[in-house]
């Protein structure tokens, strides 16, 4: 298979970026999207040109590093998977593929497709935890949790922090990401003590980082590689209201 790529190239945070065209040749359908980029980069290095910089690590859809916009969609044309899980068999031979970084004010571009998502970490630091120190905790089975609740909490906790929800949202809202953590801990007995403070602190930090607000378009859920449900946003909003009412 052969493809034409239009890739966003940007030297650094402060410089202007632009699209550059490349051709990807001799690509096989079993290659992953990132392996296709590896092949393009291999050719660029051979020509002594700088390869396309992109974040990646696990290459199995769990570390959340590889977020990018492919053919106008966060993580590309697939449902429930990260860019590294996209295979070239999802494209038609000869396709023109545009590749750009996730765009959001709160996610500045560092270089080419690499963005700075540390805003997510700061939201977590604001309240995405249960305040327990190491040691002195009760036996694990002393806290029974109904299976359905545990499963629901797990589904929210499966978020990989990739930022696709933000990139897909026209308001660049981080609501789905924040709601996933708020929900997980609101569902579990361990999270009850700090329920009120947590939702307030995390949402305050979210605003401070410059993410937009949610207008219920559900674009986030559609593009989320872990298919985190928007019902979590509703739960977060209830949590916030409850907190505000005291």
């Amino acid at each position: 298979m052969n493809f034409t790529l239009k890739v966003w190239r940007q030297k650094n945070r402060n410089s202007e970026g632009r699209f550059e065209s490349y051709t990807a040749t001799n690509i096989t359908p079993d290659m992953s999207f990132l392996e296709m980029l590896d092949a393009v980069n291999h050719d660029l290095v051979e020509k002594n040109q700088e390869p396309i910089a992109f974040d990646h690590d696990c290459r199995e859809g769990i570390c959340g590093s590889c977020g990018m916009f492919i053919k106008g969609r966060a993580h590309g044309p697939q449902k429930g998977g990260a860019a590294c899980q996209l295979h070239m068999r999802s494209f038609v031979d000869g396709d023109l593929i545009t590749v750009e970084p996730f765009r959001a004010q709160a996610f500045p571009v560092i270089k080419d497709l690499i963005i700075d998502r540390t805003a997510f970490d700061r939201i977590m630091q604001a309240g995405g935890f249960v305040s327990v120190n190491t040691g002195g905790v009760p036996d694990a089975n002393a806290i029974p949790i109904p299976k359905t609740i545990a499963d629901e909490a797990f589904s929210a906790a499966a978020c990989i922090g990739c930022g696709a929800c933000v990139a897909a949202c026209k308001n660049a809202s981080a609501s789905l990401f924040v709601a996933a953590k708020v929900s997980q801990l609101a569902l579990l007995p361990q999270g009850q003590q700090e329920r009120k403070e947590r939702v307030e602190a995390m949402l305050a930090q979210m605003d401070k980082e410059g993410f937009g607000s949610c207008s219920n378009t559900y674009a986030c859920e559609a593009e989320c590689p872990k298919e985190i449900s928007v019902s979590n946003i509703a739960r977060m909003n209830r949590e916030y209201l409850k907190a505000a009412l005291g």
Partner: protein
Amino acid sequence: MTLDAKIPDGPLEKKWDTHRFNLKLVNPSNKRKYHIIVVGTGLAGASAAASLAELGYRVTSLCYHESPRRAHSIAAQGGINAPKNYPNDDDSIWRLFYDTVKGGDFRAREANVYRLAQVSGSIIDQCVAQGVPFAREYGGLLDNRSFGGAQVSRTFYARGQTGQQLLLGAYSALSRQIHKGQVKFYDRRDMMDLVVIDGQARGVIVRNMINGELETYIGDAVILATGGYGNVFYLSTNAKQSNATAIWRAHKKGAFFANPCFTQIHPTCIPLASEHQSKLTLMSESLRNDGRIWVPKQKGDKRSPKDIPMEERDYYLERLYPSFGNLVPRDVASRRAKEVCDQGRGVGSTGLAVYLDFADAIARNGKQWVEEKYGNLFDMYQRITGENAYQTPMRIYPAVHYTMGGLWVDYNLMSTIPGMFVLGEANFSDHGANRLGASALMQGLADGYFVIPYTIGDYLATNKFKPVKEDHEAFTESKKAISEKTEQLMSAQGKRTVDDLHKELGKILWEHVGMARNEAGLKKAISMITALRKQFWSDVRIPGKANDLNPELEKAHRVADFMELGEMIARDALHREESCGCHLREEYQTDENEAKRNDKKFAYVAAWEFGGTGKAPKLHKEALKFENVHLTQRSYK
């Protein structure tokens, strides 16, 4: 130098408690005067950094990732062990201890393994308290499953994403300390060197990966929790950027490297599809609980699996090992898969695969049941191969997965460099010659939550630390050496990409230092690697600039170290003239092709001292004493 493992006296069950009582404490109000650098934010690093900060130490945490949460630990699927005996199947600390020592083929320290088994229960308690959503039974209590090498169900899990949930737990504890200002975290920092001053580890030099600047971090102790070195093989199940640079550069500064040849090859991975493949994907071995492994009885049988009748299939693990069946330890399962493929009975287009079949499980319990337990793994398989494993058996083949070897540490997890501690997969400590499933997560968190917080206090309380500044010559010299190395890499301007050279190294290792090894092959590997290393330095090409974000340069530094480490792995494998665990020397096998140990000559830890690049390292031996378990030929029949 004689190696002192500092194993406490007394009966096995009492060693850790006695030792803890004898450790010197740092007075609570003095803790804030000490500064600890923790490199790595995987399970081991994040749990250590958080726990030390909670105690009041000042902690600097750094990693090459953008966020602590992206560490390789995130990818662990299957589960974490603890002998809670919740299922009432007669599990105990002793049984986990025994299984681990035996599973490691009697090449691990009894005292370390026992401690690991002892603290493992507290890990589960800790994680649950943090809100880790482990799988539960309908009654609301925690669910357990069994895992390779064990006959009890002691594995706690969170669907197929246990590592993710445990790491997010540790990350949340770390985040809380960062918010409090007790931990200073630096992202996108690549450790380039360890700095030793007056015989003590006092800091690290890191490369800021965004602008290429070399930065100095000073502390009273340094903890390396930088993960394993499986990527020396190029293709492995590890995250693409997992590397050995931190531990290798510390090795060059005096830390001994133990048992480098003990590398685990995992039996259940998705087979290689093409040359372009950049990594291999593990299918959690929990699949072996319900999937049955088989190949056709006939050589070269190309029929579709559904057309091969039952009596023409060879369920070879069930045949060879009636009591453990498909649940034999990893090394055994991998070696047997290679054997049947070498016999020409492998399946798939390459013939380098065996079937893992769920037809019986689906017939017995229904598709939904299988989907509940393994749904995400089946999805992952389909995504990668395009095949539906509910309808046709999965194809699997062994792949490099985990490194039992690593920097040598004593019972306190301190390396041979005073003040430098090594945790998690980066050390060699607890798994001997083969690690059992679900035991790495356990070890990483044991090291970080429940061992280092105590043992580091003793080191800090019993040593004096001179104030040092960034302009100390040890730091400036180290920076100079790194800059020179970078310059040498950048100016080579050869013809080959870093990946090409890395792939070639990987092929040499897989061929000669992989699942089966022999003297001639190992010698050949050593000379091939030596030649390739020379070529690397003259023929590598790195575009771009050194003082910029430059992924090719990052890789080049790592591969430069792999080129040296690869040779040491081969040397270690050559010197160990026995088979044990994952290390199969073809010359040393029983009549039934099982690993044949030589306890008289090789019941020791091989700890290598750096002898200079391209020079032979010096071997030091730490004798292993078995006072509580009887050394037997492992049998899973």
